[in-house]
């Protein structure tokens, strides 16, 4: 399969002519772009789509990335013309939008056990940034100068990067033998400089942090805040809530938990929930129902951290999340978690690779053992399935971090297990030669990075 670049099909330069409505010195001279008719473009992108794997193509068991089925009806809900208003519209003229925002804030608060929720962060990492900035503002308001954020070594890379971006020093916390937080190490790491501990629960091994109450106590006693990375919330719906565990701030990943499409990399949304104590620090504008039955309003919380998005975040993604939550309700959400956990446990029980830690919830990390996990993953592509996340977390050798989600049937899990086992039985040479049945064969990423060619202009040389 091969599809030429648009520019290889046609490249047409147009002059910005004398008939331009602007004087010459305000305009560029010319513009060169592909000039193709609609039928040609339809084929181009249709063929490109044929070289891309989506959730409807087959299982997509990327641990911690949680690619679950995206219900089609949510696309229709988000496509409503009423959703597409300008963000500067007067509050009086967009009461519907504000009401839906307020409802979603409420939904998310209930689900996370949080008192107030902002919808502004446009992605999970932006949610982290929002949450850590709230923590910073909180300490500053208390006249408390805290410079460190503590993060377990098994945490997502974004946690580290976020803390750094927000101006904090990162204190990395080694895991205990059982893959969980090492309480002694935590006690040693936490102190008067600690602004926050960032934690995922269940963690990236799928393990519930059983000592979460003790963890919270240690951090809170030191005057720090507890930040919940919502990446793994799909494991807990209706079973446990970050707010109840002692977390002060959290973000929700709407594509991971509420089935919004990931769009090949976004847009996402990373709403942030906080306890009542932290509500005054939320970004502006926040939305609330006015007390006197006079509808909904935007307002700036008293000590708002300001903004993390130019407008109000990725609203059309949030509309989908609202629709999903409203579709499932209490029982559906709880069932989603139950089935996600059952599926992960079932799949783990069916594969030959070792799964070193447990009991796990919605995901497990198998070890490819003597095999190279990245090679094993490439080989899985040949069996028509998407492989798990590889080589991470590092606590497991040659990690295959696997999260089937609730959206896979038993039959699909059996197929996936068969793919795992087929690969497990193969030799290194086979794995290194993989994939063989994909649109492109193994791509040499090292060379691509050594001589970066990042546009079709760079190919002309």
């Amino acid at each position: 399969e091969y599809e030429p670049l648009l520019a290889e099909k046609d490249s047409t330069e147009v002059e910005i002519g004398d008939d331009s409505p602007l004087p010459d010195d305000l305009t560029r001279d010319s513009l060169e772009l592909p000039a193709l008719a609609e039928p040609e473009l339809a084929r181009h992108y249709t063929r490109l789509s044929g070289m891309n794997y989506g959730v409807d193509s087959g299982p997509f068991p990327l641990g911690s990335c949680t690619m679950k089925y995206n219900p089609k009806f949510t696309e229709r809900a988000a496509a409503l013309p009423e959703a597409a208003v300008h963000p500067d519209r007067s509050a009086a003229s967009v009461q519907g939008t504000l009401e839906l925002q307020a409802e979603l804030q409420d939904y998310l608060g209930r689900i996370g056990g949080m008192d107030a929720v902002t919808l502004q962060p446009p992605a999970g990492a932006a949610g982290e940034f929002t949450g850590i900035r709230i923590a910073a503002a909180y300490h500053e308001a208390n006249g408390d100068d805290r410079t460190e954020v503590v993060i377990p070594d098994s945490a997502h890379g974004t946690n580290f990067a976020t803390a750094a971006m927000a101006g904090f020093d990162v204190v990395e916390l080694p895991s205990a033998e059982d893959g969980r937080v090492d309480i002694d190490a935590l006690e040693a790491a936490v102190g008067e400089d600690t602004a926050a501990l960032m934690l995922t629960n269940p963690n990236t091994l799928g393990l519930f942090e059983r000592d979460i109450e003790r963890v919270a106590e240690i951090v809170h006693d030191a005057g720090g805040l507890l930040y919940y990375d919502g990446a793994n919330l799909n494991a807990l719906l209706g079973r446990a809530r970050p707010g109840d565990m002692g977390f002060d701030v959290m973000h929700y990943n709407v594509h991971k938990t509420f089935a919004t499409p990931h769009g090949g990399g976004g847009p996402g949304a990373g709403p942030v929930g906080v306890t009542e104590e932290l509500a005054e620090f939320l970004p502006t504008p926040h939305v609330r129902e006015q007390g006197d039955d006079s509808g909904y309003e935007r307002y700036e919380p008293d000590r708002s951290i300001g903004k993390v998005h130019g407008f109000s975040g990725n609203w059309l993604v949030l509309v989908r999340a609202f629709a999903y939550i409203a579709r499932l309700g209490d029982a559906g959400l709880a069932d989603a978690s139950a089935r996600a956990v059952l599926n992960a446990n079932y799949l783990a029980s069916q594969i030959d690779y070792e799964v070193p830690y447990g009991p796990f919830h919605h995901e497990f990390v198998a070890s490819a053992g003597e095999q190279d996990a990245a090679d094993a993953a490439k080989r899985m592509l040949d069996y028509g399935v998407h492989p798990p996340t590889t080589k991470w977390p590092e606590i497991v050798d040659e990690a295959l971090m696997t999260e089937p989600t609730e959206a896979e049937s038993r039959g699909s899990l059996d197929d996936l297990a068969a793919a795992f086992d087929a690969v497990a039985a193969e030799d290194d040479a086979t794995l290194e030669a993989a994939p063989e049945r994909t649109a492109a064969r193994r791509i040499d990423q090292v060379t691509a990075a050594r001589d970066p060619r990042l546009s079709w202009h760079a190919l002309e040389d």
Partner: protein
Amino acid sequence: MTRQTSGSPYAPGDAADTEAMLDAVGADGVEDLFDIPEPVRFDGEFGIEAHSERDARRLVERTLGRNDELTEFMGRGHYDHYVPALVEDLASRQEFLTSYTQYQPEVAQGFLQALFEYQSMLVELTGLDVANCSMYDAATALGEAATLSQRVRSVSGDRILVPDQLREGKRDVLAAYADGPDLSVETYPTDEGTVDVEGLADALDGDVAMVYAENPTVSGAIEPELGAVGDLADERDALFVLGSDPVALALLERPADVGADVVVGEASALGAGTAYGMGAGLFATREAYLRQVPGRLVGVGEDATERRAFTLTLQTREQHIRKERATSNICTNQALLALRTAIHVATLGPDGLVDLAEDCVVLARDLAARLDEVSGVRAPVNDRHHFREFQARTDQPAAAVASDLESAGFAVHVVGEHRIQVCVTDANEPAVDRFVDAVTEVA
């Protein structure tokens, strides 16, 4: 009515499957699989009602239906251009819509190629060397540019200069990004809606790491002396960051030609339409800063058969590899919107895109002229060429004018006590006559 859902309708399998799977796992029930200590178990209810698909759709539709139906003459960073149906149709294919970030490029060649083409279009539009495959929006792209300026400028300077008229949403986001690295965001003056070059020169010193300007500016004015701004920044070794968008870039001075080091802005001015502020941040820069670029980059490589293939590249800049030393914490970006922008650009072609950009000048000019003839209105306020939008002075309080216009079915910006801002594009152009009538009525 209709089938009630007790579990998730998106989780396959029946009771027999569950039994068999529990057997295989060796558990008596699903609840046994949750290793959650009693004290933190949640035994309550969310109190969220389940709905049939039909009712969930109706709920969203009815709620959003409470918005007033207004024809918007609004812009200021969030623009509406007619999006060809082809864009929606192709970007909605599940292979694009429901795919993940391209960590396994061998099964993601389609999206990677489309993003590579998006990057290429922005390279052409900006004249710069590289573009990433999107930031969240124009404001966060500006914030990332500020942190980039810290990494690439040898100067010890920590001042960031932005125009005094900068939209507050951008200012606040920039402040958030500037806070961590302790940058100080300061303003320089503007005149007639564009840079006051002398004022900028006065503000510029060796402590300035970055100068930001926009073309067109937030008030819709086209910068007449952009080259001078670039020269000033260059003289003081400050990074020159220019804000724009793909439509304006098709017609206005090419950023590379005026010395821009970075271009940021709203790529989604094409491809998305109005979306309550949802956009896609454009980010392009010079090759020299390549390894300091935030966000994802798609590059060309070869596969094992030596055929051209696409892949995410230079990932060592990113958080999942570099952690706290990454160029940014960004992970998820706005890839689908970048795809949509690319398809929209491709659908227009160079002729269509330039035509559209020229329409943005002509429509704004003509509408301003018509409003200027309305008694009680002066437009445009700024003695500049305009792109899409312009400000108008109203004898009556602007808030009252805007409110009356809402009653008449139109939305505009209030930007001063006696100043409104009006944006006109191909999307609302059919309503221009009615709009002028309404302004005539209420002004």
